[in-house]
């Protein structure tokens, strides 16, 4: 009977040793939100709509993301580009693009379905909101800012410059 009780005392000291040791280790916790931990490369956070270097939107309004979405969180309404008012290099663009983040399950099927890699699940994870309506991410909120090399959409372009229905370019001129 005595030997097991002695062992227990031993265990207490072993536990206390871990506590003592960690007093001299670097802490794992960080001072969020002042400090932020970089997500893993394949982390799937909130969506962003991408632009080409010239500022044109990659999204062509095909609504395949909405079709692929298992929780019906995406709504797309397409419209036609003209050379005077061009949003994307293709024939059409998304006039309305909305994601209901309350429905989204971050599966990334939308990004998989996208033929132009326009929608990407970014590393954005700060999604708290105070009003349910803020959970509807409209096109304005989702679109990346215009890169330095590009212009704001809609752009007026030379007629005949963009004549493909789906752009073939990685980064158009």
């Amino acid at each position, binding site marked *: 009977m005595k030997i097991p009780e002695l062992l227990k005392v031993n265990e207490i000291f072993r536990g206390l040793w871990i506590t003592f040791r960690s007093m001299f280790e670097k802490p794992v916790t960080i001072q969020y939100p002042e400090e932020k931990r970089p997500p893993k490369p394949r982390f799937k956070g909130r969506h962003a709509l991408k632009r080409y270097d010239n500022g044109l939107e990659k999204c062509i309004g095909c*609504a395949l993301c909405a079709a692929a979405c298992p929780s019906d969180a995406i*709504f797309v309404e397409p419209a*036609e580009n003209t050379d005077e008012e061009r949003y994307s290099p293709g024939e059409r663009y998304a006039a309305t693009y909305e994601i209901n983040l309350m429905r989204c399950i971050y599966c990334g099927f939308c990004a998989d379905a996208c033929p132009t890699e326009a929608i990407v699940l970014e590393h954005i994870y700060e999604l708290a909101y105070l009003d349910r309506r803020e959970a509807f991410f409209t096109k304005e909120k989702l679109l990346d800012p215009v890169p330095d090399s590009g212009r704001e959409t809609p752009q007026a372009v030379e007629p005949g410059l963009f004549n493909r*229905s789906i752009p073939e370019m990685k980064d158009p001129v």
Partner: protein
Amino acid sequence: MSEKITLTIDSQQVITEKGTKVVDAAKSAGIDISVFCYHPKLEPVGACRICLVEIGRTQRDRSTGELVLEADGTPQISFSGNLETACTVPVAEGMVIHTANEKVTKAREDILEFILTSHPLDCPVCDKGGECSLQEMTFEYGLGESRFPLDEKIHLGKHLPLGDMITLDQERCIQCGRCVRFQKEIAADPVLEFYHRGRKTDIVSYSNPPFDSYWSGNTTDLCPVGALTTRDFRFEARIWEMNASPSICSHCTVGCNITLNTRLDPKTGRSKIQRVMPRQNEWVNEIWICDKGRFAHNFTSSEERLTKPLARNPEGKLKPVTWQKAIKIASERLKSHPDGLVTLAGGRLANEDFYQLRTLTEGLSGKLILDSSLAGGDLTARVGLGQGSNIKDLGSGTAILVIACDLEEEAPLWWLRVRAAAERGATLIVANPRETKLEKSAEYILRYEYGEETQTVLDLLEKESEASRVFKEAENGIVLFGSEGMNFGSSQVLAQACANLLIKTNHVGKTNNGLMAVWPEVNTQGAWDMGFKPDENLPEALKGAETLIIAGADPVGDGIIPDLKGKFLLVQELFLTETAAQADLVLPVLAVTEKSGTFTSGERRVQLFEMALPASGECLADHEIAAKLGQALGIEMIQGSAEQVLEEIIKHQPGYASLSLAALGEVPEQQPFVAKEVLSYTGTVFRNTSGVGVQLPSAAENGKMPLEKFTLPQKGFGDGTLAVPVTRLYDQGIMVRTSEILSPRLIKNQLILNPIDAEKEGLSAGIRVEISLGERTYEAAVDIDQKVPVGVILIPRSMGIPLDGPENAVLKAVK
């Protein structure tokens, strides 16, 4: 019955009629052979080669003519070694066909790979994506990878306008020629043709304006790829996002079956019609609809629609009120002034609306009037088209008389079907004072002067002529009459003369025989059946009324009566029409897309339509308003849905007793077989799953019909120039005007003259003139057309010159 042939397709024994093409024989056995260029309604061409199959035939000994047999006694089958197109080869006794063996599969893969070499593969942005035959076939049989380099794809024109309503994408075109053949064979508007050769082959339209046809939308249904798409639906929605509701087109009396595709409109937050598609009904519209039916749908979502009841306040302005208040105003008035009620209804209401309005009006001892200038609804009920009739079945042995109407402008689908019957061998007799398009297919053309239409029918009956003999001897006889150049009185006489012609020649009370009226509106026949009748002197009847209920009619806007002041006027309308603007009470009603009910077509076929959109604003159906009024006035009326009212109609309405909700929803098997899973065979027409309707029996089917005597009317007009109202398909009514896409094709404010008359008056096309009709004068531009008879000015209806019938006119150029 034609000869039966037995053959084997994929080791399945198939019995079919002689002359059937292999592809159709396979289809009847449930075997799908892929097709692009073949369509069961069009002549085969064998252009795309996707339907290649291996065909083995029996052998006959040359000397004896006996079948060559194998050792086991079965006929010897020899395969030629070449593949053949299943769409062009007719079946033969003992044929053995392989549709899916290795050789065929390989060939199909190769053809697909070859078709895809010049296809842009822009399915994500293509309006056809999701219901495209090429997409479907590539999923089913495609290799997934092509041996042809992607960079070598040739690039051709994208989004080129092929007419005002259709967009052509040259890259996507696979040169199947379905559109070209449709325009030639079915629409008889050969305005499309191939241009250039090889990979640059292109579809062009050589009419002016381009693609000038009332049928252009059908080519987008037939197109197996996204080469032809409508401008109306361009980039509106994806196919799979939309709801589909069965409906009936409300633009003319044919009652084409349509499917309304609806989807949320983010701008308004409400459901909106994105496109109108044909729904198969081989008894009514087969798989076609005209462009008016397809593109004139924007009126339902128009901003101009009334959404709240309006009542005139003490200052004399129309102000919104609640329904309770509105019903109270109306019922108090009707209680305090129970006499002198007149209910005027237009032909766009459903049978249920007419029935409830009638019950209400009869409860108040009022008078029912139908807003129509064409008579004969009682006659079509008596000697109308026999039960089970189908113009599609008619061919040789049938005589069809079309009198006093321009069928293509007034009931386009009937024009299509009557023309097709003539092509199949039916004798077509067209009687009209001017040349109409139907005459191209007519065997006999009877030309008469305005005012002599009844005499023309009498001559057919009494005088000896070739046309008269053919009509009398024909196995089946049909008469279609319209209202061109007539007012109510003269059309009544014409209708009776037509009925007498049919009775005397024994063409009543039988299938495929009888009288058809080319009604101006979708449910004019239903209105007659429910007890509404036009009044010979409508202005007087309206003037004599103390209280007026006007539903779906605009007598002020139509110029029947200048104003309706000094009476209590209750108007049930979609829009604030000129009549509604004078009303004391305006009640907003549901459009046909927002309610359910039944329409009775000119062939007396009762068809169901369902609700496709939620109600706009506070609108109610016409029958609901009538029921509410009835309740407030203590009249015993059914209070309930359209279905409950329909059951009441079936119970109490003679002639409608043979109906039942179940019968209306029945869908017999139809040929060609439409299935969404096999789009390539019939195109994107919708399958009918909600009923083909029930054709009512005519009274003549239950007994002999007596001949009615009538007196020939005196010509109501003197010599000199005659102004004649005519109906044009793309009129300026609010239902059509609200459709932006049709606007370039709408009728202009033009009077149409013969070049001889124009020269005499010193007028040329485009000059503005003043036209005096009695004491009224109007201004319009001049248009010149060879087809107008000398001494006649054609005035299209709805362009602002109201005309009840032909009238003498004086023209004067405006300085």
